[in-house]
């Protein structure tokens, strides 16, 4: 089974490559359509028309777009994503500096969303047929209607100002230093063994994680709730009851492992949306990740940075889709025999 699983994963990952290539073409073309002239933006205001033309020639902007793309792709494969017009440093350096923060935020938010979503889905299922179920469904509807950035602002107001339980910006309290071993602050904090540092890191990431995760969890609640209802209509559940298994044993021992499958697929396919949500949430919480960088890049038309971050978001989405497929394969025996 492991071999088959690895084969599935390898096939999925291999399939990402052409999809990713198509996305790079689309993003590249879209950025070139924007009415922004990179040559003119990189020259002094006093540049003459001749100087602008010379710069365009130097940047290859007069070449056919497919040649421009080929030039970009060749450099990108070698790790050169161009230079940031805003920061005047290699784009790759700036992007890689911020990537761990966003990955950490997204993964923590995902874990939060799954824990809350699964717990909520089970809870809602256990009170099915009662007024509490209706109340729960209404609550999930309300939370689903709130976009993550609005949740972020609400959390700042409630937990940052009215009940100042959490800090509202940054990643650590002033004065705390964490040596970077893994690039992920939470892990590096744990490695210090200093409880105050760990507590500080957790308290700073709490609100952004909750804002991002809570926006995603109602969907998990509803899908799991619905999936459990469907699962409980299967004959093996009736048989389990006849065998004398308790409700708890049936739910956690029999039904959940089948009912969870749609949730796994959902998480994999929707993770891209959660990852994209980091854009505004990071900006609101001044969390120094890719989202913050992307907002600035869009404001200043820093095309190489926009391109690099767009592609990272794309790659993460594709990767998670593939992992979701692999997880589904692992969890669903029917897929293995198909």
């Amino acid at each position: 089974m492991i071999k088959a699983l690895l084969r599935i994963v390898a096939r999925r990952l291999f399939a990402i490559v052409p999809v990713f290539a198509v996305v790079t073409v689309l993003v590249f073309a879209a950025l070139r359509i924007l009415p922004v002239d990179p040559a003119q933006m990189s020259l002094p205001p006093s540049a003459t028309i001749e100087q602008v033309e010379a710069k365009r020639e130097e940047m290859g902007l007069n070449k056919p777009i497919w040649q421009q793309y080929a030039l970009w792709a060749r450099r990108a494969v070698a790790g050169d994503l161009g230079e940031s017009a805003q920061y005047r440093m290699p784009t790759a350096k700036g992007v890689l500096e911020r990537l761990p923060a966003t990955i950490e935020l997204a993964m923590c938010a995902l874990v939060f969303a799954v824990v809350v979503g699964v717990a909520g889905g089970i809870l809602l299922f256990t009170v099915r047929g009662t007024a509490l179920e209706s109340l729960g469904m209404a609550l999930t509807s309300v939370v689903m209607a709130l976009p993550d950035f609005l949740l972020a602002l609400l959390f700042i107001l409630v937990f940052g100002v009215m009940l100042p339980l959490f800090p509202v910006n940054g990643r650590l309290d002033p004065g705390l230093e964490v040596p970077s071993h893994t690039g992920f602050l939470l892990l590096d904090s744990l490695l210090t063994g200093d409880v105050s540092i760990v507590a500080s890191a957790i308290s700073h990431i709490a609100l952004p994680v909750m804002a991002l995760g809570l926006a995603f969890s109602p969907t998990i609640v509803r899908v799991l709730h619905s999936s459990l209802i469907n699962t409980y209509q299967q004959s093996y559940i009736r048989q389990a009851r006849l065998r004398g298994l308790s409700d708890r044993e049936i739910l956690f021992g029999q039904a959940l492992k089948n009912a969870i499958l749609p949730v796994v697929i959902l998480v994999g396919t929707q993770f891209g949306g959660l990852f994209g949500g980091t854009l505004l949430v990071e900006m609101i919480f001044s969390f120094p990740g890719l989202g913050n960088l992307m907002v600035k890049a869009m404001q200043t038309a820093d095309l190489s940075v926009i391109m690099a971050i767009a592609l990272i978001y794309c790659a993460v989405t594709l990767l998670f889709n593939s992992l979701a497929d692999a997880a589904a394969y692992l969890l669903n025996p029917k897929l293995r025999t198909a």
Partner: protein
Amino acid sequence: MKDIDRRLFMKLAGAAGCALVLRPDLSFAGEIDNISIAWMTDPVTWDPNQRLSPDPQSILKTVFDQPLDQTPDLTLVPSVVTEWKLADDGLSLHVKLRDDVKFSDGTRLTAEDFAYTYHQRFVKGDQVDLVVGFGVVSDIEVISPTEAVMRFSKPFPTAAQWLAFSASYIVSKAYAEKVGIQGMQTNPMGSGPYMLKEYKRDSRIVLTRRDDYWGEKPSIKQLTFEIIPDPTARLAALESGTVDIAMELSIRDVKRLQKSGNFNAIANPIARIIYVTIRADGTFADRNIRLAAAHAVDKKLLSKAFFGGEAATIDFPTVPGMPGSPKNSSFAYDPAKSKELLAASGYSTDKPVTLSMATTNGQFPGDYDMARAIVTMWEKVGIKANLTVITEAQWYELNASGKLPDASLFVWENGTGDPELFTGHMFNEEMPFATYRTPEVTARVKPLFSEPNYEKRIKGYEELNAYLIDEGAIIPLVQAIQTIGYRKGPTLTPWANGGIGPFAIKSA
């Protein structure tokens, strides 16, 4: 002029508020251990000469010294440079420097560092925005460690003003040669009152006071800038006690804080103007239409609607009190006159003149809504404007290529206190910022760029500003405001240009 990033050059206006360090007068008892300020953006680079962007200037000024400084009314005063004299022909500037200034590594700041900053950096090809103002420097003669002569390839009457402007900070030649430009971007070492202690990009900047600083020692031992781009989050940081001061809040929040018991807030007028640019060709080639458009805009209403009445209305492309502002002259809101002027050109509300207008959306608070309000005001007199949204970057490109719509709502800043950076740059058709381009205006503005006599030059700008308004060449609207919220206890004295710095915080 060396190559620089054009978008950064365009940000030089922001220096109006930020290039000049705000010196709020926060009074505390004794020394203060730490003051935390919620700030809008990260400096992006610690090379102080690299960017003209307005926002980081206040932060850079804590670590680096400028040759000259400014008072609240933008008068130049000595700093590292104690004396300066512009030659009668404007082709050189003789400067004398202090002999007691040290960089934070203990080395002495000399005229060699001055020469390196304002000339040698450009010669060796460093990509720095400082070249925008000082690209005309052809040589700097170092006479002694405390004396030098800047020589210019053409008359540079505003050389002294530019020495107190954005990106104008003296860097250490030895340090720059040791660490290179990349090192300077990440590890600052200056002669200013503070040293960088902690820097987390896009998150936090912590600065500690230098006890060996040559000048007046600030009361604040440690300055912390919390980088918080979102204004709601900045307000929350203030209200939760995370920070002591929060910059650039919404006017609604300012009003609320002013009524609260625990906080104060101010709306500080700064040297930045919001205005409508006009093209000299197309629909606006007709002077009647230009003046009709100008008379139709109710600026007081715009100030009330979008700035809570705190923004002063302006009739000239400058801010009140700045040199070059015509005296005893104004321009009336008069929609009846607008209709009259349009009728003279054959237009009316039934037969409106059509034109195109562009606006940004988010470049400054309320920009899009303000543009829509102006379009509505114009409709009432017989001008139908088709509004489109563009980005700030697009504005510069369209303007440079002559493709900007007939009118556009924009913002312009000037931290020099000199009209050259307002009217001069906005109307010199040899510069890419000019929108209203005519031979007549160019003939009036160009000589002012090389007029070495200050009084004569300022008089020239006064007359030019009056002419421009008479011709309807621009529609100035309001002077921008900078909003600051701060916790109660200290008093905050507004500064003319919206930076913020430690020196006005003194022991009670």
